């Protein structure tokens, strides 16, 4: 089920999602034990075009996924390591990796 690309979405010239840019890693690609600081939230992708990416961004922000927040992946689900449970500052949040895609993390040196 692919819907036609939304013209408001970025052009494919954007860096491919999930690939480290400037040492950043998408939370969706992190493994258990990944620790770091959130660098950016909500670079929209074509993948979640079903939900307005702006809407997803705001939901993430409202849950506390904001630039500068501390994250750590605490647990992974048993099928396909999905969903993940993260420590977000001092809360615990469960989310699917698909939703975590737009959260880029600057990982700590030792994680």
């Amino acid at each position, binding site marked *: *089920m692919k819907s036609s690309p939304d013209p408001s979405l970025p052009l494919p010239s954007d860096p491919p999602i999930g690939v480290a840019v400037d040492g950043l890693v998408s939370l969706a690609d992190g493994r258990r034990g990944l620790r770091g600081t959130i660098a950016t939230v*909500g670079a929209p992708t074509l993948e979640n075009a*079903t*939900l307005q990416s*702006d809407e*997803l*961004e*705001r*939901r*993430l*922000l*409202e*849950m*506390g996924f*904001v*630039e*500068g927040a501390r994250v750590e992946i*605490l*647990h*992974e*689900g*048993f*099928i*396909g390591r*999905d*969903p993940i*449970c993260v420590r977000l*500052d*001092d*809360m*615990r*949040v*469960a*989310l*699917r990796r*698909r*939703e975590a895609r737009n959260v880029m993390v600057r990982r700590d040196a030792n994680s």
Partner: protein
Amino acid sequence: MTHASAAPSILVPPAEAAADRLRVALVGNPNSGKTAMFNALTGARQKVANYAGVTVERKEGRILSPGGRTTVVLDLPGTYSLRARSPDEVVTRDAVLGRLAGEVPPDVVICVADATNLRLVLRLALELKAVGRPTVLALNMIDIAQRQGLDIDTDRLSAELGMPVVGTVATRRRGISELVTAVEARADAEAAAGRSNLGEHGWTEPSAAEIRHLHREAERILKACVRPPRRPDTWTGRMDDVLLHPVWGIGILLTVLFLMFQAVFTGAKPVMDLITAGFDALSALVAQGLPDGLLRSLICKGVIAGVGSVVVFLPQILILFLFIILLEDVGYMARAAFLLDRIMGGAGLHGRAFIPLLSSFACAIPGIMATRVIDNRRDRLTTILVAPLMTCSARIPVYTLIVSAFVPARQVLGGLSLQGLVFFGLYATGMLSALIVAWAVRKVFWRSASEPFLMELPSYKVPDPANVLRNVALRGHIFLRRAGTTILSMMVLIWFLCTVPGPPVGAAGPAIDYSFAGVIGHAIEPLLAPIGFSWQMSVALIPGMAAREVAVGALGTVYAVSGGEEASGVLGASLAHQWSLASALAFLAWYVFAPQCASTLAVVKRETNSWRWPIIMFGYMTGLAYVAAFVVYHTAVALGAG
């Protein structure tokens, strides 16, 4: 009175009139203790539990302060922002903004904050302030904050936010009167300043940039006023290491569910035998005391055999609720949702569907209400459609009766009761078919991608024994009240249909064959004969629409009446005598699927606002029930169980 209504503004100054009926709304993040606060303020008994999304409707209560002033308190669903996305959050937004029809906005908003988790609620408090609502911050769960050695500078916090801050422990009713005082003072100050609470102050949905801005502000306030805990809670992390472990976690979840259903089946036995004996003795006593006749028949066979056969299941209901309430209070529900998300997602269900579905083990009605936390309408409808397939507590009497009558009481696999296993199997069948139907619904009706799943996992808490006991007792009370009202009246009706009219003089067959029940049963029998139901079973299904457990009472009455004067109180024994194993299994299969509950259909109508979905639900469930019973009956007959 024309005089007073002609010039009310002269007799009562407007400010005072408003102050007389103060309206207060409880707003806050999910699971921050709003309902506990509501209960503490008003003495209500609304449901409190340790997961996000317990409250899904607005509830109103009243406080009468010593000064004779009445305050109307609104309990609202939890939310992270006023930018509502799911139906429950819409209720909160509309209540705060005064958009609900026929309702003025609250004079004061109590923003209930979990003191141990302030970051998100501070942003919400800033949002509320921006709307222009006079707000008081209740720093709830201050007991836990103190235990963790969390330092909160409340004076500074109050100054930064520009609102009074009061520490509270809602569950222990600490700080409640201080909170009420602060709220009243705030309302008086507003009234004195002559500000009106009407209008939305031009509220618009915040953009991502605005959310970021408010969050930074909240972060700054947090840094200024709160120092990190000296003794942070390490238990939650340690328990999660086991309970969310990819292998152990699933194992423990399955074990917990299995133990729950085993306990429901086997643990209640002794008390149930006692209750049965009590009703038998009562029946014998009445039979001795009353002359033979219609009245004796009504009381012994209608009321005692009917209601008694349902009340017997009280211990099972209590055990089931004890388990569910403990799981809810500890904080396990959100974990179970995490563990099962992938499996549910595979069936096309929303991750948050787990909690409504688990609530449906108690009753599909609160389960269907709980789907309001699901933001996407289609996801919500799918969950509503499959919720009644989860085995609700009203099926327990039917399952127990038939399983104990037909499944041998043997031990298998080293100590597990075979009856308990079959009982668990019925639950498993319900769950599995819910997943399959959900999957089919998505294939047939809509094929949209699923919605985001973002859920806060609460800290574990030790359940408060008094709260647990109170809630279990409440469930027992509801069950008995049903037995005393719906079930009792259905029983009297069934007794009437079974005895009237009496047989003609010189009739050959049993008297019940000539009664209305006999006539109705015989009339629908051809329809149900292909699935192995006798006319007595067919009769029991009809009142079973009022409440599933009535079917058991109805069977009790039908067999008590048709069994003549010597009717034994042990319904199971007479069923084992009269039904073939194949029919019994078909009856179970029917009950796994059949939409035998008018109130569920009514709630679906209310929640979806159309007759379309209850009709679809009724149709697909009846179809499944018929096919399942047919297949089971004929397979069993072919295997020689006819």
